[in-house]
Structures are given as structure tokens and as C-alpha cells.
């Protein structure tokens, strides 16, 4: 993992001191809310429905066990005993008091964490594949590049007041687990025919009220040129992005207006003008950063482990967990393990302080002290020996963390919705709870297979409903919560926009509608065909008929 140097420590600590002073001046009345609001937002502090909310950055979703313990401590000491892991691989605390936030930020700074740039019209937390550094299918670990981008974008004076917020994601695997095509900039790490490492560069993706899938503007950018090229993309956006209309201010609108080819041309022209300036880091600095992400020294072990096979034969839930929640690691005899934060009937992404402490202990015991957060709101132990799986699963299961549903219908992404969020029009979490309770049968879920449901409580789409195989969007219909059903989205390498199937439903009706959609799939699927493939083959008609036919 990256470790702060003296400059990182100095910057983050200075920021805590500055914010403490700002909070004191706000409380004393020296600063009005109008003056204070942009300052608190720059430190991740929102005001939501019931209280302030603090969004803490987890750079590219990587956490140490000690950092997780500190999050647990903050949840216990300053909040109400839980945190909420988000689709940006961050964590949010729902109940901090304004007066406590400087102390919370100091607690975070002491373990090399902060809430800087988790809000505001700046470059936000760079996200990546939750299995980075462990995945068997990656070209290289994308996190050194994400860290480079973090350092470049933190307090970047030119890009601190962009027309709108800006999100970057990187993947290095063929299977896109970071939804890169849905980001303002998506980067796909690859090797060219000469064996050189570089990036496919995608711009102009985004969700919100205008969902757009990003367009490739460069097939191969040598890795050494990453920062200067990013700077060129951002400069074109910063200069021409709309500032007159918040809803048309994201880069996706500019890319649509100019056309991807023209955007690429302007970026290229800007890049040629600046690429020889000292923006890109020297090879030694890139190597210094990369060294922090050196793979852990794992013993090469056998992939055949009798204890795992024996328990799997005896216990269906363990067998399902191994199948769904573990994946191929670079080192034989090891796996990465997804700890589902989606217990059936539970709140997607929430973890109690005790669960956070437990995950920290398990990371120390079984996973080299490392933890990841996925954009699907789960936690990952990236480096686990297969022989440890039975003991690990038993401990997780006893703590309510043993759900075997990774990638299945009940592994639902849901935004906080109207239960917490000041922007929401409808609740998201109770819909997720109702669906996971309705489908609370592992055999049935395994039969249905991979199926991603994503729920947002308003058109800002924090719950990624545009990218759901089944998407659900909560709206306010004359003061009542109403839910639209969308089908056919994907956040993966085959990215697609989900389409609205028809009129919306109330809370009960939307769960019935999901069940009808699943029934059509089960009735129509061909051998081995997953839900999304069946939908793409058949189109919306049979689903529409099943859902609305009786109306």
C-alpha cells in the first residue's frame, strides 16, 4: 500500500487545522452558512436530511486493516455505530456533529486518510477494480497509476473549480469491474503488440439525468504520458464545459456537443503543446510509487484443498460462497474473497463498527492486512490462501457477513435514497430489502445466476440504475414514492444503457414486477444464457407483456 511521505502528512494535517479553524469561525458566527458551505464540502461534509454526513475518501478502494479499525472507531465514537460503503469505493458516516468533524478528520489523518475532494467540482476519488493487484486476469496492478492520479489531482489549482464534479476510473483486466465506460474519464490499462504498457482512453461517460456511455478518444496512450494527456483532456473541459447550467455541465455534454472526434482533436492539440513540459513524472518517481504496491510474498500452494472440497460437499451455503464470493488469484492456491455487505433483508453497503473491526482482524489474519471496497458496496480480502477458506467463512457467517450472493440478484447496489439523502425523491433501501427478502433462497438465486439490480432514489443515479441489468429509479409522483423499472443496462466491458420498460409502480408493485421479469428470463433462457444475454436476444417485448399484460 502507498504510505504517506512527509509532504502528504504535512498537507493533510495542515488541512485538518485549517478546517478546525473554519468550523470554529462558523460556530462563532464569523462565517455565514453561505461562506462556510463550500469550505465544508471541500472537506467532504454535507448536510443531509437528519444530520451532517461525512464522506471519507478510500483511494481506489484500498484500505489497510489499521485504517479499517480507525473507521470502526469513528463509527463507534462519533457516529451511531455504523458506516456506509459507497459506489465510489468510499465510506460515509451519517450522523457526525459539526463540532466533532475536526476531531474526526484528525483521527483520519493519523492513519493517512482524509475527506479531501470527496465533494465539490473537482477530481474525485479515482476508482478501480476491487481485485487490483490480486486478479488473475489483469495486465498489471492499476493502483500505482491511480495513486499517481491522486497525487496529481489533489489540490490541483487549475482543476479545483471545474464546471462540475469529475470522476476517473481505471481497470487493467479484460472483465471491467470498475465501470470505466460510465466515467468522465475511463482508462483501460493494456499492452500493445510491442509489449509496451499504456492506456485506452475513454471520455464523456456518465450517469445522472443524461446517461452517456464514454467514447474512446485514444486507443493507446503510453503510460509515461498519462498525466500530460489527462491535463490536456481536463483543460479542454475546464475551458469549454458549460458553467451556465448545472445539468449540462459534465464533460459528457461537451463531448456530445463537440463530437468525440473533435474532442480528441482538441485534446491532442493541447497535449502536443504541453507534453514536453515537466508534468509527467520521471521513471524513477513512477517506480518509487509502484514499489508501494509490490505484490505480497505469497507462498505458491496447491489449488486442490481437501478441506474446502469436504466442507463444500457437506454445506451447500459454503459451497455457494466459495463459488460466488471467491475468485482466481495471481498466485496458485490463493483467491480473493468478497465479503458481501448485502445480507438478505439488510441495508446494502452498511457495516457496523464490530463488523469493521472483525474484517480488519480477518485481513490481518488471512489477507496480508489488506482490504478493498468495491463499487458494488462490498468488502474484499484480496489475498487469501484457499486452505483458510473454511475457517474464514465460519467466522464471517457467525458475524452476519457470510452471504454467498456476490454477483447474484440480491447483490443489489442501492443509494441511501430518501431515508438519508436530501436530494432523493424516493427511498431505495426498503426496495432492496423487499427484493432480497422475496428472493431469500440461495438455490433459487444460484439457478437465476448472475443478475445485477441497481436502485437509485432520484435521477442523479448514485445507485447506477442506468447500468443495472434490472434498474430501478425512484421518483416523486404527486407526493408518493413511485418506481420505474429499467432493463438491459450494463456497467461492464459490454456497457449499455438500461431502458425504461413502462409505467412505474408503488413499493409492492416494483418487487412483483422484478419477479415477473425474472420469470420471463427463466422461461426463455437458452442453455447457459445469463439474464442480460436473454434480454438482449429477446428485446423488451416479452418482459413488457409479462409485467404489464394484465393491466
Amino acid at each position, binding site marked *: 500500500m502507498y504510505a504517506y511521505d512527509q509532504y502528504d502528512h504535512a498537507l493533510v494535517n495542515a488541512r485538518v487545522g485549517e478546517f478546525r479553524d473554519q468550523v470554529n469561525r462558523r460556530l462563532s458566527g464569523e462565517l455565514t452558512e453561505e461562506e462556510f458551505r463550500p469550505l465544508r464540502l471541500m472537506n467532504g461534509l454535507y448536510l443531509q436530511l*437528519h444530520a451532517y454526513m461525512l464522506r471519507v475518501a478510500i483511494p481506489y478502494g484500498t484500505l489497510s486493516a489499521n485504517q479499517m479499525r480507525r473507521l470502526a472507531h469513528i463509527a463507534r465514537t462519533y457516529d451511531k455505530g455504523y458506516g456506509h460503503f459507497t459506489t465510489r469505493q468510499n465510506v460515509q458516516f451519517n450522523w457526525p456533529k459539526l463540532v466533532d468533524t475536526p476531531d474526526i478528520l484528525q483521527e483520519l489523518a493519523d492513519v493517512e486518510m482524509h475527506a479531501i475532494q470527496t465533494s465539490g467540482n473537482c477530481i474525485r476519488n479515482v476508482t478501480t477494480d476491487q481485485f487490483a493487484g490480486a486478479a488473475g486476469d489483469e495486465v498489471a496492478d492499476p493502483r500505482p497509476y491511480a495513486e499517481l492520479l491522486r497525487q496529481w489531482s489533489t489540490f490541483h489549482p487549475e482543476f479545483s473549480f471545474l464546471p462540475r464534479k469529475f470522476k476517473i476510473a481505471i481497470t487493467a483486466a479484460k472483465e471491467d469491474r470498475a465501470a470505466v465506460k460510465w466515467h468522465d474519464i475511463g482508462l483501460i490499462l493494456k499492452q500493445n503488440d510491442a509489449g509496451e504498457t499504456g492506456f485506452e482512453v475513454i471520455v464523456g461517460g456518465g450517469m445522472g439525468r443524461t446517461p452517456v456511455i464514454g467514447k474512446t478518444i485514444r486507443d493507446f496512450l503510453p503510460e509515461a504520458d498519462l498525466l500530460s494527456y489527462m491535463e490536456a483532456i481536463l483543460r479542454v473541459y475546464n475551458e469549454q464545459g458549460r458553467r451556465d447550467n448545472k445539468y449540462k455541465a459534465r464533460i459528457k455534454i461537451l463531448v456530445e456537443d463537440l463530437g468525440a472526434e473533435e474532442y480528441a482533436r482538441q485534446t491532442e492539440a493541447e497535449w502536443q503543446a504541453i507534453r514536453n513540459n515537466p508534468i509527467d513524472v520521471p521513471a524513477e518517481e513512477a517506480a518509487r510509487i509502484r514499489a508501494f504496491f509490490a505484490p505480497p510474498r505469497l507462498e505458491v500452494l496447491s489449488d486442490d484443498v481437501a478441506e474446502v472440497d469436504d466442507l463444500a460437499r457437506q454445506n451447500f451455503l459454503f459451497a455457494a460462497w466459495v463459488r460466488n464470493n471467491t475468485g482466481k488469484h495471481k498466485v496458485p492456491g490463493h483467491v480473493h474473497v468478497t465479503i458481501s455487505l448485502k445480507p438478505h433483508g439488510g441495508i446494502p453497503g452498511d457495516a457496523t463498527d464490530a463488523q469493521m473491526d472483525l474484517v480488519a482482524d480477518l485481513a490481518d489474519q488471512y489477507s496480508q492486512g489488506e482490504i478493498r471496497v468495491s463499487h458494488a458496496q462490498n468488502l474484499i480480502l484480496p489475498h487469501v490462501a484457499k486452505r483458510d477458506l473454511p475457517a474464514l467463512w465460519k467466522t464471517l457467517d457467525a458475524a452476519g457477513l457470510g452471504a454467498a450472493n456476490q454477483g447474484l440478484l440480491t447483490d443489489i447496489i442501492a443509494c441511501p435514497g430518501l431515508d438519508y439523502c436530501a436530494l432523493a425523491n424516493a427511498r431505495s433501501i426498503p426496495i432492496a430489502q423487499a427484493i432480497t427478502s422475496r428472493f431469500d433462497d440461495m438455490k433459487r438465486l444460484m439457478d437465476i445466476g448472475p443478475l445485477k439490480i441497481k436502485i437509485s432514489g432520484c435521477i442523479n443515479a448514485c445507485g447506477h440504475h442506468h447500468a443495472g441489468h434490472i434498474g430501478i429509479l425512484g421518483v416523486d409522483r404527486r407526493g408518493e414514492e413511485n418506481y420505474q423499472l429499467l432493463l438491459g443496462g450494463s456497467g461492464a466491458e459490454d456497457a449499455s444503457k438500461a431502458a425504461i420498460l413502462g409505467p412505474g409502480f408503488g413499493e409492492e408493485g416494483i418487487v412483483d414486477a422484478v419477479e415477473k421479469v425474472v420469470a420471463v428470463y427463466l422461461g426463455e433462457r437458452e442453455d447457459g444464457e445469463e439474464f442480460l444475454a436473454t434480454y438482449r436476444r429477446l428485446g423488451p417485448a416479452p418482459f413488457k407483456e409479462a409485467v404489464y399484460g394484465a393491466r
Partner: protein
Amino acid sequence: MAKKLSGPQMVIANRLDDGRVVFLDRAGGWSVTPANAAVADDEDAIEALANVAAASVAANKVLSVEVIEATTDENGAPWPAHIKFAMQAKGPSVRADLGYQVALNWEN
């Protein structure tokens, strides 16, 4: 207020120091209990409430002030009409055990 409201109205806000949801009460203070909220029916009375609230904002006691439509709960006490503000009065529906509002023992 940007949106024209109709019928009886009350004022909701968040307390500055801890963000807690409060209602402007009949004594011109802020109460965590919506049943204590001052409810105004006519334009002059509504404006008077809004003025008291604005003075509290200026005095850095509360923020995020909204004049909202009021209804009554099953006991006839003031209650926010719209679901969003009712959510603020009750706390998150999915964590009825945790909101500030738990201590108030809501029955609705």
C-alpha cells in the same frame, strides 16, 4: 420560498452544531418535537414565522430552513405533509432504532 404552498404551514430546519432536525415552535424557539411546531394558516402569520426563522439563521442557530406544508398526526398534532419532511421528523425508515427521533418514541 420558491414553490407556492397552500394550507397550514410550519417551519423545519437543521440545528447548526449537530445538524439535528428541529421545528420552529410557538414560543419562537426550536423544538425537536414536531407536535410543538407553530402552524400558520394565513399569509401574515406565515410571513411572521419565516421572519423568526430568518433571524435564527442570521443568529447562526439553524440552517436549511424550509417553510413546509403541515398536516396533523393521528393525535391532531402538527406533522409535515410531504414524505421528505415526514422522513426528517421520523428518522430513517430503515433504522428506526437509531435516529435522534428514537428517544421521542414516535408511534407513527
